[in-house]
């Protein structure tokens, strides 16, 4: 049993022990983790203790909550008090946060069992999990290929049965793209849907936490638990969210599904074919297909790779060898900053800090960062217009199925293009999710992306559930 809904129902009913669920997942980890490397840390003892406590609650007649006994894998950029949190970076190796992220507290209150911290591209910068200081994660469907990224560890953990639910963060596609490549469901909610308190910041105006799961219903369950306003995150939206678990039963009869006629080219034929079949499936389920235009979609990549590095260069200024993590000693403080950061950051992080610092520096600000913010507005407004004609939009989640290690070589732009279909939703703040929809080249999973308007998660989940039913 690996679906979270089933596990939680059985544990709450007392017909399944949380301890047995944990052992089943630890056994799966023992079997394949040496080959997959999904985790930076497997929390064996903590998970066992937590499961025992949940079983004791049930035995005493108490309800542990909607995620009772569900093993959850956390991306290692989410703070866990007293438990190492590294961002897969040497600069945070060994750091133990003095507080829990809000989502960690919410998981505990809902009866979940955190089973480990998962690998990622360093500071979530990448689309393959090859940029980890602790070595790459491998795709459970084909270990010669990447799992996608940056939440590749969480995606692989769910696909390999190491955890029932993974949590990831998505700044430009870092949940949806690995979900597509690993054949699992991955959701980036509306910006502000889930608290970012305790999520180590990459690009604060783009980052959002979301689930990676085996089923659409499990993602709904997870978002129902972790969504909502948090006084500790002033960008979290102060409204109550309707239950997504309730929404998914409703079907897509009469729903308007938009096709973006001017979508950037570059997707492989197998991916495009599956996307077409997804349109067919929703039409057969009662939806109406409409054409929409988003001409600025194609400029998302440029806007993103100016805005995200700019924000990152500012956010990552805090890794200076003073308050946490690595310090390389030097005679004075200023010299210590330079050598510490040079030793602690990997190539991709250095590249983005450089790009961001350049884009923000005097003389270039207006030409780069300022212009990118205007393109961002353009993209946002065009999507808003599209959502007047369509309830959801369908696109590929990734231009290709999982690719072999090293396939993108030393060309950063080739890697950046992996996110061409996912980036616009981060810029606009709208929600998006990837749903597995059959297989493409070499029998590898293909994900179809469902996009929707601000706080229109219920419609997005209804369409996703319909695709899931059609794929089965």
């Amino acid at each position, binding site marked *: 049993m690996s679906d979270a809904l089933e596990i939680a129902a059985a544990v709450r009913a007392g017909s399944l022990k949380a301890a047995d669920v944990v052992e089943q997942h630890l056994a799966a980890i023992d079997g394949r983790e040496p080959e997959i490397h999904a985790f930076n840390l497997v929390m064996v003892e903590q998970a066992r203790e937590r499961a025992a406590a949940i079983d004791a609650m049930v035995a005493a007649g108490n309800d542990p909550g909607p995620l009772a006994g569900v093993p959850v894998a956390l991306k290692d950029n989410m703070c866990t008090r007293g438990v190492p949190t590294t961002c897969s970076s040497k600069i945070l190796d060994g750091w*133990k946060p*003095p*507080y829990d992220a809000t989502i960690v507290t919410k998981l505990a209150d809902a009866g979940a069992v955190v089973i480990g911290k998962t690998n990622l591209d360093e500071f979530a910068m990448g689309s393959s999990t090859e940029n980890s200081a602790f070595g790459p994660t491998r795709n459970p469907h084909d270990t010669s290929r990447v799992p996608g990224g940056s939440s590749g560890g969480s995606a692989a953990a769910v696909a390999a049965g190491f955890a029932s639910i993974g949590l990831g963060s998505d700044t430009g596609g870092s949940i949806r793209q690995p979900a597509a490549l690993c054949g699992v469901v991955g959701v980036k909610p*509306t*910006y*502000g849907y889930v608290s970012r308190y305790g999520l180590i910041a990459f690009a604060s*105006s783009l980052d959002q936490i979301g689930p990676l799961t085996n089923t659409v219903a499990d993602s709904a369950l997870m978002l129902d638990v972790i969504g909502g306003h948090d*006084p500790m995150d*002033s*960008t979290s*939206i102060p409204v109550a969210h309707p239950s997504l678990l309730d929404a998914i039963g409703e079907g897509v009869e009469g729903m308007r599904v938009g096709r973006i006629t001017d979508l950037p080219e570059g997707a492989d034929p197998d991916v495009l074919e599956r996307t077409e079949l997804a349109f067919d499936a929703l039409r057969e389920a009662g939806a109406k297909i409409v054409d929409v235009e988003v001409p*600025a979609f194609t*400029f998302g*990549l*440029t806007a993103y*790779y100016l805005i995200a590095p700019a924000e990152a*260069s500012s956010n990552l*200024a805090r890794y*200076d060898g*003073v*308050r*946490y*993590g*690595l310090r390389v000693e030097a*005679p*004075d*403080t*200023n*010299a*210590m900053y*330079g*050598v510490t*950061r*040079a030793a602690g*950051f990997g190539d991709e992080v*250095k*590249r983005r*800090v*450089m*790009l961001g*610092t*350049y884009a923000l*520096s005097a003389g270039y600000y207006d*030409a*780069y960062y300022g*212009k*990118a*913010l*205007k*393109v*961002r*507005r*353009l993209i*946002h407004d065009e999507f808003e217009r599209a959502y007047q004609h369509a309830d959801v939009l369908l696109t590929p989640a990734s231009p290709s199925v999982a690719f072999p290690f090293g396939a993108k070589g030393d*060309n*950063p*732009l080739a890697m950046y293009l992996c996110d061409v279909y996912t980036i616009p939703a981060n810029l*606009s703040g*709208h929600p998006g999710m990837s749903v597995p929809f059959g297989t493409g080249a070499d029998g590898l999973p293909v994900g179809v992306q469902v996009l929707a308007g*601000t706080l229109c998660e219920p419609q997005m989940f209804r369409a996703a559930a319909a695709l899931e039913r059609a794929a089965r």
Partner: protein
Amino acid sequence: MSERISVEIVTKVARLARLDLTPEEIDRTTAQLSGMLEHFADIDALQLDDVEPMAQPYPLDNVFRDDVIVDGLDRDEVLAAAPAAEDGRFRVPPIIGLDV
């Protein structure tokens, strides 16, 4: 916007970013940033004069909470995670007074 980026500019940016890059890293970064900026010139064709910049996606005004005292982080726990601490404070190398 497609001005050629030079080794001198990259060296200056590295100093601003507090990154001690090696000469090889400076050269590589110069070549890679140059390639990226060339690609990013695609937005030069857009007419953006009347477009308002958008810094964040969900428009929220200043956000305040009630002025209620809550516990902060545990000082010992915070300092235990630092590379060096002394007398309840972060300890750093000299900031002034060196001939550097």
